[in-house]
């Protein structure tokens, strides 16, 4: 089954749309007319906000593909709790895309806003543009961020990438902002370019910063260096964070700039 959603022009285009109902499961289980989204404090029919074209049939979520056309940067929570199938987003997408996702694939051609793949446990997200802050992190005060699955960002990520990460994999082909991998416990983050203050307070997990790692904390202990043949680079190895009781995290960083 293929569902094509095209966002219609709106009178107040900046009022956020909360659309956790845009998942393969909804379209498999419900009639399109019964699916609703929220625009500010009003519940509206999906068809009021999007032009919907549906074709083909599906027996399981796996066979459902949703395509989102137009600028959806004010559309939040698309693909929340997604278990299987595919969502292709042709332009930008709003916050909380792929929250709690456990399977399937979300492909974003434009930029994604903050909290992309928040607390996901499985599946895959590929974002061809930039992503905002808190990609792959947890909710406020939450002890764990993503626990499984894979997020790939083709350009840059914002601040607090993979906060409290507890599994899975995050790859950023560009740079990340401030404090990637803070409070990290498990999993792997790879940043191909630069990062600022990587892995503060980490307890476990592995983080690669292949460009320059700015302001490595004084509580990281350099234990050696290694030539990484995958990335063809000499990388310093750090262990930390020694501010913590548990400091089994590993940070591999290009240039050093220990403060």
């Amino acid at each position: 089954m293929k569902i094509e959603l095209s966002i219609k022009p709106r009178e107040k285009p900046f009022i956020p749309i909360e659309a956790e109902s845009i998942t393969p499961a909804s379209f498999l289980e419900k009639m399109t007319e019964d699916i609703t989204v929220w625009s500010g404090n009003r519940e509206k029919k999906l068809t009021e906000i999007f032009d919907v074209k549906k074709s083909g049939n599906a027996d399981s979520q796996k066979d459902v593909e949703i395509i989102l056309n137009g600028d959806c940067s004010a559309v939040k929570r698309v693909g929340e709790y997604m278990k299987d199938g595919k969502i292709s987003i042709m332009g930008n997408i709003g916050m909380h895309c792929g929250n709690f996702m456990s399977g399937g694939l979300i492909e974003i051609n434009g930029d994604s806003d903050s909290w992309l793949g928040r607390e996901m446990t499985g599946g895959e997200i590929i974002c061809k543009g930039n992503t905002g802050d808190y990609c792959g992190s947890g909710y406020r005060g939450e002890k764990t961020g993503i626990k499984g699955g894979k997020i790939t960002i083709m350009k840059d990520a914002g601040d607090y990438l993979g906060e409290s990460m507890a599994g899975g994999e995050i790859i950023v082909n560009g740079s990340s902002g401030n404090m990637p991998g803070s409070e990290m416990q498990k999993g792997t983050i790879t940043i191909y370019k630069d990062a600022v203050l990587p892995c503060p307070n980490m307890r476990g997990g592995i983080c690669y910063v292949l460009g320059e790692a700015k302001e490595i904390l004084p509580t990281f202990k350099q234990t050696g260096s290694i030539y990484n043949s995958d990335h063809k680079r000499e990388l310093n190895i750090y262990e930390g964070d020694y501010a913590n009781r548990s400091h089994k995290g590993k940070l591999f960083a290009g240039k050093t700039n220990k403060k």
Partner: protein
Amino acid sequence: MIKKNVICSFCGCLCDDLSITIEDGKITGVDNGCALANAKFLGKERLLKPVIREGDSIKETEYNTAIEKAADILKDAERPLFFGWSGTQGEAQAKGVHLCMLLGGVIDNTSSLCHGPSILAIQEVGHPGCTLGQVKNRADLIIYWGCNPLEGHPRHMSRYTTYADGFFLKNAFRERKLIVVDVRKTMSSDVADEFIQIEPGGDYAVLSALRAIVRGEEKIIPESVSGVSKSQLKRVADMCKEARFGALFFGLGLTMSKNKYKNIRNAVELTDELSRHTKFTISAMRGHWNVYGANEVFTWMTGYPYAIDFARGIPFYNPGETTAAEILYRKECDALMVVSSDPAAHMPKKCVEHMADIPVIQIDPHKNCTSFFTDVQIPVAITGIEASGTAYRMDGVPLRTKKIIDADFLTDTEVISRIYERILEAKADV
């Protein structure tokens, strides 16, 4: 006539020992207060009547007309935003939450621009805090980090810390040690036993280094961390461990500089670590007199201290998404109500631009920068002077401020209640 033991409703210290002289129903003298208190109690400038905007001009009007207009603006909004609340009574804050719930709006208080990050950190790792009475009577080590109490909270040191008598300290002034941490010298750092000057943005690294040193991992710390020498860090760590009761206070220098809430989290974790050696506590230097009250009231009513989105009928909280500055910046709201605050003076230009595009209601005794954007401004009685009301001190202790002179203004609570009633009626008519 002199009224004694009056509470000062200016800063988070809520000093409750002011003497106010009143002659002919007017305040003519303030004793015991600091310069800020004098300015508050003796201030003359205020808005006398409600005003509404008609085209390019501002017109004086009556309460009823202004309340009617405010209700009209709010009732059809798809995403109204309610902001401010730190300078009003707890009763009005509660009414504000009801109004926001009724309308499915977003309610945020000024914490999101000051100590919001502290709350985020507390939600991650807890708050080993205590009341100011404990600090006054027991603490023999005081740390002020990223704040300048002598100028920001002028009587904090004389009422609660350095210059206060302590029940369990024989000679409090000599027994208490004072450490000040800041990026520059201040009036407060001049009186400190130890002044730690950190390079801007270096607080996080210094806190991490202190944690490692307290844990006995000083070997890995380099000779200098963010401009602070290792020897000073070691000396400070020892001072902390040797104290019988240490109290760390932090201000906006820590919450609003680089790394924001992570700084506070690190400071809380340092406090935790020190509590393995001695008694240590940490508290925020809350600015506005009832900003803590806004957090308390919002929390008991909704479960969350600020940035609460009622669009879906149930409270959703996510600072960075549901905070006022972000909502204005992203142009998400279609109406704004400001209560006792001045967002136009404190928010980024883009937020202020959106204020110019949407209807704005202001409830405030005074004109301020936000007044330039308002469609309706309703003046109210000043709590603690012209009206009584509940406020929470920076350590979470609720105090009842008193009415000391009469005035012909409605209170914030009355104005918001009347807007609420008016909207209920309008909804019933439909």
